[in-house]
């Protein structure tokens, strides 16, 4: 029975369904690219699936990049994503290490508190977060956004990393401590390098979540100078009612998708395993 199913007709039907779904996923990405190279006239005159006319309008990309400030949004997204991921990783890893290796009175209760916070609907916190950041003068600032994003990463990071630290052999830490390494030395010089695979998985999932995040970004920032890419796209789409520029909109979508697709190609395994780690409790 190694061969799986025997009936060829069923096999063909199944295969057809898989191919159709595959097309439904890939085709939108393809027409995002094709439509990013059209002008408005082509959108209204021709079918949405028709190929763009020559010359291809690569200028749509430079146009959104400068005219619609996607260059700025891109930089903001990069800064906020990397900053919050690094900060969140550090906050999560330090606590996860202690919880895994140096249990103290109340440590399991603390772990439970972090884990159960993942169950709370985030929409509940939106209003107070806005007023909190406002009172700290951190609305309309990439720094404020970075702090909030970092906080959203803590629970998931602790959840994954506690398991990871626990799986590492204790001998190395013990050897290092006899060699005179301090607690901090052991963590930074021995444990962090050893836990790189876990840190990378958590880090990549975080990068993905923050790069794509919209709702916190739109609540905490209303100055275009500090928009991230998803907020910028939503605002551009809203403007479409008065100023239709479909080609540039698709160019903007592509600018948002491509970095994440490239990352997905390189870290496919980590992304799939990391993203699903949170759901398997």
């Amino acid at each position, binding site marked *: 029975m190694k061969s799986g199913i025997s009936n060829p007709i069923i096999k063909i039907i199944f295969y057809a369904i898989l191919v159709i779904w595959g097309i439904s996923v890939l085709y939108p990405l393809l027409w995002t690219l094709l439509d990013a190279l059209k002008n408005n006239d082509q959108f209204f005159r021709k079918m949405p699936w028709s190929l763009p006319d020559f010359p291809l309008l690569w200028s749509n990309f430079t146009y959104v990049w400068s005219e619609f400030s996607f260059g700025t949004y891109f930089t903001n997204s990069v800064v906020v994503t990397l900053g919050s991921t690094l900060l969140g990783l550090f906050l999560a890893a330090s606590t996860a290490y202690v919880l895994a290796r140096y249990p103290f009175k109340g440590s399991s209760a603390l772990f439970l508190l972090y884990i159960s916070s993942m169950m709370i609907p985030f929409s509940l*916190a939106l209003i107070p977060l806005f007023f909190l950041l406002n009172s700290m003068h951190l609305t309309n600032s990439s720094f404020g956004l970075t702090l909030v994003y970092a906080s959203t990463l803590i629970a998931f990071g602790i959840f994954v990393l506690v398991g990871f630290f626990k799986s590492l052999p204790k001998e190395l830490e013990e050897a290092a401590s006899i060699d005179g390494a301090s607690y901090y030395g052991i963590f930074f010089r021995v444990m962090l390098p050893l836990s790189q695979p876990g840190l990378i998985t958590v880090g990549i999932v975080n990068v993905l979540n923050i790069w794509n995040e919209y709702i916190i970004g739109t609540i905490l920032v209303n100055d275009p100078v500090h928009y991230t890419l998803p907020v910028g796209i939503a605002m551009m789409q809203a403007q479409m009612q008065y100023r239709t520029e479909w080609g540039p909109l698709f160019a903007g979508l592509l600018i948002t998708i491509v970095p994440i697709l490239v990352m997905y190609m390189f870290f496919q395994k980590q992304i799939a395993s990391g993203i699903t780690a949170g759901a398997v409790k």
Partner: protein
Amino acid sequence: MTRIYSSVILLKLFWKGRFNRMKLGTTKWQRNLFIATFILPTFLFFCVFTIYPVAQAMYYSLFDWSGSSDNKKFIGLDNFKEMIHDPIVWNAMGNDYFLVIGKIIGIMILATFFAIALTRFRFKLSNFFRSIFFIPNVISVVVIGVLWNFIYNPQIGFLNSFLSLFTKDKVDITWLGFTNHTIWMLLPPAIWAGIGFYMILLIAAIQSIPESYYEASGLEGAGQWTQFRYITLPLIWEQMKVSILNIMMTTLNGSFVIVLIMTNGGPDNSTQVMGSYLYQMAFSQYHFGYGAAIGVLILIASLITTVIMQKLMHQETIEVS
């Protein structure tokens, strides 16, 4: 080589024991200091940006408040009483559960189908399909919303252009403009975007089933369907339960983003879900107390639904086994 290494470790462990006994006082103090410096900053951060806002939301829900400090009036549970008489809240809640049920059915059927097709059927391109099917899960909901808006666009969208191929006149249906059924239109993007994730979960579950089960049943003449019904399904049911609960929670907590991007709750509040109504009440109409109360409602709804669904699915597990 390994033996030398391990004996060094043993020796070091031995010395460590003596070392610890000698300097127990300072070590213990150092240990506590270390724990404190590694636990407290994270905890403080977590309290400020997570625990405090959640507690504050419950507090705000008891006020009539437009955002400025001078007109914040304590009104007890009046916001919640007002919600009972607010038809939009009921409609939003109905939409939320419509999406929950629609997504559970759509995603679970397709994700289970794909998971089985990509494991048990041993197609050559299985790994390729698996990577492709996951792509919508790494794309921002905002991008997905904009893409589907274009599909539904009445003048130049895909759907109408495609339908026009088969009709004499040009089709110009405003897919997102019906007051009665527009919420249905939000289901395809939500399902399309969600499948890859649950497919991966179920693939992992299927791959953990020992091959010998299938071989043994195959020898006794069990067909593919029988194997699916009596081996695969019962053995991945745990994972399916997790998936169903997960769809429910993520939908109640997060489906409002795609609503905000695609319809903004319209037309005429007909596609409003609880999250988008909260957003609109708080950040466009400045009823922050009422918005916070909707947030509390979302929390209560998702807790109650989790408990009920766990009970329901628990019974079914017994039936299956």
